[in-house]
């Protein structure tokens, strides 16, 4: 990492440009950019788009490392453009390219739809037999703080695709589920409210599932949220093996805990303000 500067500096930005309607293959295009202190890669892209080249395409939304839209290759590593200050990664030159292991829609915009198809195939949501309760909840599924910590780290995933771009297995096997979908499957498998392990293992334990991972660990290295998908994958492999050997502990999904009837508000907690909008009638 380059030592951040506190003064402005002129750098050269190399952008990977590609318009599938016009270009046969991607090409590099050079731009000059004055970097101000605190300027992020996303700020720099806006600067170039507004003042030099309005045809440049890139994806962004929240600008604060939450939505995961602006993941791209920044000087050879996947990272969030909004979360990376130029002065920290570039002294004189900055190279920006779309995430590898994905098709390019245009310029720096990758087509993430294969990732989300794989994600959907692994049922990234709470699955239970009591569908009626899920549709019309009568209370909350109880979960202790200890149960929460079993999957909390993996729940920080923002689906930016950085891990998928860094995965060497995905580079050779496009059908491989990949670190994000598998880590999210593990996140739900370890949720005490869930009972969907047997549905997910059909995909996770198949030919292009968790066992294709050979633990290069690059997914965890580049994850901007510290999710550690490589760890989730190894834990998932363990769960699948234990399940095959019938040694996996059966878990009853968390029961519904109805509203507390005898509870009283503590004296120092103020009551909630009145509704500004009338709450919708709950379906029965």
């Amino acid at each position, binding site marked *: 990492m380059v030592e951040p500067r506190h003064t402005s500096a002129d750098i050269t930005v190399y952008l990977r440009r590609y318009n599938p309607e016009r270009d046969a293959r991607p090409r590099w295009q050079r731009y000059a950019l004055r970097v101000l202190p605190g300027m992020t890669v996303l700020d720099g892209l806006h600067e170039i788009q507004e003042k030099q080249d309005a045809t440049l395409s890139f994806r962004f939304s929240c600008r604060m490392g939450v939505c995961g839209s602006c993941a791209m290759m920044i000087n050879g590593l996947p990272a969030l453009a909004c979360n990376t200050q130029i002065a920290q990664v570039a002294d004189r030159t900055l190279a920006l390219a779309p995430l590898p292991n994905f098709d390019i829609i245009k310029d720096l915009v990758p087509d993430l739809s294969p990732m989300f198809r794989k994600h959907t195939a692994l049922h990234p949501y709470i699955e239970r037999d009591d569908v009626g309760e899920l549709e019309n909840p009568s209370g909350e599924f109880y979960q202790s703080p200890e149960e929460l910590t079993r999957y909390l780290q993996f729940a920080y995933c923002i689906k930016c695709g950085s891990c998928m771009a860094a995965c060497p297995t995905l580079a050779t096997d496009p059908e491989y589920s990949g670190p994000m979908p598998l880590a999210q499957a593990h996140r739900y498998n370890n949720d005490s409210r869930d009972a969907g392990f047997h549905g997910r293992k059909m995909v996770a334990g*198949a030919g292009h599932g968790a066992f294709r991972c050979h633990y290069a660990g690059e997914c965890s290295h580049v994850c901007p949220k510290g999710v550690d998908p490589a760890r989730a994958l190894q834990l998932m492999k363990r769960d699948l093996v234990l399940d095959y050997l019938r040694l996996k502990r059966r878990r009853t999904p968390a029961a519904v805990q109805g509203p507390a009837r005898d509870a009283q508000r503590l004296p120092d907690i103020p009551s909630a303000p009145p509704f500004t909008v009338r709450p919708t009638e709950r379906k029965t």
Partner: protein
Amino acid sequence: MRETKWWTWHIAAGAIILIVLALHMLIMHLSSVVGAFNPSGGEAIAWANVLARSKMLSFVIAYILLLGAALYHGLYGFRTILFELGPNPALQKVINVAFWIGGLALFALGTGAAIVAKML
């Protein structure tokens, strides 16, 4: 789910190799220290000692176990490397079938040799 089964056996074969190979190292390379299973004395690889061990049922079982585990573990690992090269599904099937046939043939050959040696 087939991959889960194959992976589990891959890990189990690795554990078996670890144990049986440790015994092999102990007997073959530390014979002067350990001194076990060398009834004729001298080097562990002396013909008389090799023949004596081959006639012990426990060794025949260990040989077959090591052969099976090493073949399975090695071929599964090699298959994983080949699959990393991105063969199409038809070629993957050919690799699977070829490895199963080749592995079973080698296993049969080695097992036969161990049994024949026991009967010498």
